[in-house]
């Protein structure tokens, strides 16, 4: 079962988003939220576990939920749509390449969830053909989520981090 803070966070996130109805089922418990005066039905089916606490809303769209009456265009870029409505800043990759969370394989990552960052804080490296691009946070704020794994190939424009601006 989710903790009360987590439910509160969920309510806040759903409220701020343009999701109209939200259902979360896990281990026999079920949470259902529906905005008042909702004309459209949007059902989001939650897949099994491995959904970390507060990031539920952000994580659902990419795992192919059942979404009805939502424009195809929005479905293609689920992260961006949700993020924009939540006022979070998305750090995207400026090029195709390998994502490195740390300056070297045995070093600590540049940033982790909960870290405060400044505009010019280096959050990761994207490398292609031995050209190393140190990616900066672009805003002052707090890292809310790391969206990719160390060593992963990332696309041009792919979201890497979510930052809650200060």
């Amino acid at each position, binding site marked *: 079962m989710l903790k009360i803070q987590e439910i509160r966070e969920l309510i806040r996130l759903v409220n701020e988003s343009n999701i109209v109805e939200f259902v979360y089922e896990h281990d026999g418990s079920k949470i259902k939220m529906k905005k008042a005066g909702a004309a459209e039905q949007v059902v989001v089916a939650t897949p099994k576990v491995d959904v970390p606490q507060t990031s539920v809303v952000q994580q659902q769209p990419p795992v192919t939920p059942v979404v009805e009456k939502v424009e195809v265009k929005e479905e293609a870029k689920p992260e961006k749509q949700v993020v924009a409505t939540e006022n979070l800043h998305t750090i995207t990759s*400026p090029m195709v*390449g390998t994502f490195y969370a740390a300056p070297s394989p045995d070093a600590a990552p540049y940033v982790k969830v909960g870290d405060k960052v400044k505009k010019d804080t280096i959050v990761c490296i994207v490398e292609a053909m*031995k*050209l*190393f691009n*140190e990616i900066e946070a672009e805003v002052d704020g707090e890292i809310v989520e790391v969206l990719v794994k160390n*060593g*992963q190939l990332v696309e041009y424009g792919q979201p890497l981090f979510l930052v809650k601006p200060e």
Partner: protein
Amino acid sequence: MQSETRKQLLKLFTEAGGAFLSGQKISEQLGCSRTAVWKHIEDLRKEGFEVEAVRRLGYRLKQMPDKLNANEVQLGLKTKRFGWNVYDQESVPSTQQLAHQLAHEGAEEGTIVIAEEQTAGRGRLNRSWHSPKGTGIWMSLILRPSIPPQQAPQLTLLVAVAVAEAIQEVTNIVPDIKWPNDILVNGKKVAGILTELQADPDQVRAVIVGIGMNVNQKQFPNDIAPIATSLALETGRTFHRPKIVQTLLQKLEQLYGQYLQHGFLPIKLLWEGYAVTIGQQIVARTLNGAIRGVALGITDSGTLKVQTEDGAIHYIYSADIEIKKE
């Protein structure tokens, strides 16, 4: 950094090409008194230049010190922009680090950082680069191309071509390029390139190109001896490092100009001329495992195309490449 007067003086000696320059002519060209000219000549002597002074004939440069510094690089330099703003250091942790800082502070395109020794020279993923005193070329160059960041990786291939061409011109050895930009002679690494970017999401602010070249080393530490070599070891001769830097800067400036004007295609063709990877059985090692197959070639953006046994084509953006021997 050095004074404008010093730069002009070196340009004059370059143009004279070993002939005498009268004190009168130098003082006119530099716009200073003949006493001031004499002082500048004295300064050159203190730095190890051998300057001959003959009454009624003037000054002649007889010998240059085996030093890699701004004077040496600029004496005989034929570029327009690259290498005319030089930060020379006896010893630095890494020339890349200093160049990064200079780029942040607004250093102009073509600025270079050179050092006789790096105490913390580094390569990909902070791997260390052996850079002992006075033996090689440890240099960083600042570029400011007006291109989006996703095009910047092409520059690493461009730099590889420039390094290969410079080595070929100075030594007559034809080096190999292993994708993307290792420079090999007889299968051993003679030069490495590390390129770093300072960029906004849609625009490159600066590209910091780090080049490490093994020139006059007579031996390497045991752990890297099987994979590293120097120009001296390969040819049995020693080389004047400033001459190599000059050739390198000239090649870089020329290819960079071509790239900005005509795009990546001409660079790609030159790169393929040196490429040793293509058509070979290779293993591409990434953080997420290895891909084994035949390297088919590079794409128009410089990405390596590898075909695995099942016929599938993989596009490699970053990996350590091992060429399988037959």
